């Protein structure tokens, strides 16, 4: 290619200043993907195994009409697993992060509302759920955890770039043109 001599120099001017801080942020993105995706994957897999419990956990919140409780109880674990796989592989990271973030907003709202209404339930975040003894009620830990995950999701939605992601493959030496690594 005749442009091969000039292209690297132009790229060097506009794109190569990948500073150390940018690289740190990239790895931070990878960490955020792994944590958010990992938690969602575990939560989803546990709940898939027991759909009856999953529906019961949804019902315990007493927010949805009965017709939707089953749909959410059955579907939510699969949504969690699907989002988790996208996040862990770094495929369509921004969309997956927005989805995961909205899920966390929903969870935080649900837990906060259960707390405010004085319900004595388990959050059912990782299976289980339903009514528990008043002494065993713990809303603070799941609430803080979900807020933390919400922040990770927000970060990824704002800056989806990360390393070890399908979205941003490392530069392909044989075809620098087709690479999306240094570009964008």
């Amino acid at each position, binding site marked *: 290619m005749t*442009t091969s001599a*000039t292209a690297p120099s*132009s790229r060097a001017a506009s794109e190569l200043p990948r500073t150390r801080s940018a690289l740190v942020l990239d790895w931070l993105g990878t960490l955020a993907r792994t944590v958010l995706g990992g938690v969602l994957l575990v939560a989803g897999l546990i709940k898939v195994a027991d759909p*009856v419990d999953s529906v019961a956990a949804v019902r315990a919140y007493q927010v949805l009409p009965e017709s939707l409780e089953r749909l959410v109880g*059955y*579907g939510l674990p699969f949504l969690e697993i699907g989002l988790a796989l996208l996040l862990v592989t770094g495929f369509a990271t921004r969309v*997956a992060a927005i989805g995961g973030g909205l899920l966390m907003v929903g969870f935080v709202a649900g837990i906060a509302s259960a707390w405010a209404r004085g319900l004595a339930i388990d959050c059912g975040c990782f299976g289980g759920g339903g009514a528990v003894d008043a002494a065993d009620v713990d809303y603070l830990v799941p609430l803080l955890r979900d807020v933390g995950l919400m922040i990770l999701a927000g970060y990824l939605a704002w800056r989806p770039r990360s390393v070890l992601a399908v979205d941003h493959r490392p530069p392909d030496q044989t075809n620098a043109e087709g690479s*999306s690594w240094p570009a964008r």
Partner: protein
Amino acid sequence: MAGKVSAKQVTQHRLVAEAAERAARERRTRITRVVTAVTVLALAVGGGVWWQVQRSAIDEVADPGPSVSSELLADGIALGGANSRPVVDVYLDFLCPHCADLEERIGDTIADLAVSGDARVVIHPITLIDPAESARSAAAFGCAAGSDGVLGYQRGLFDNAGGGFSTERLVAIGASVGLTDAAFVRCVQDGTQAGWAAAVDAAAGERGVEGTPTILVDGAELDLAATVTPAAFMAELEALTG
């Protein structure tokens, strides 16, 4: 000089064009990824819901067994005549796999005893496997007392234990064996017999019954091999009652 400038311009134009092309390509890739991701999510959730619905569907009971009158006792449900002897006490948990197995093996034999009046059969649904679901199924079973569909409901519960005992499923299992009257449905939904189920469980404990399935004949425990046959069961019954 003019030639040099124009060559530079050509190169710049080409670079701009390449950059634009690259940007367009990346945009297409990004859109494709987003569409793929959303499609995958939609299929996963849709397929998942469908799968769970299939999994939790109620299996129709092929043979609900004979109709037999029933009576609610403080510690169980009695089938057939009040004066029939011997008394055969059956302790079970609808979630217990061995109980389901036993029902399959000698359920008909025990039902025949109740129908013919050759024994007074008392079913005690105790809470052993799962504090919530065993108790809920026992309470629902109590709601069937007084009807003549107790044996059918018992089979329906065993057949559908794999899908769990949510309140809706307990109602649906009842409907699949003909227990459709409003009183039964309300009783299951309200957990009316929850207290009775707890009393059944406590009475079994007081009597020393620790596991399921347990069968007592006039108070003497039957030795239930996992491979028990109707003939072996009848032989043991006769040996115990003389």
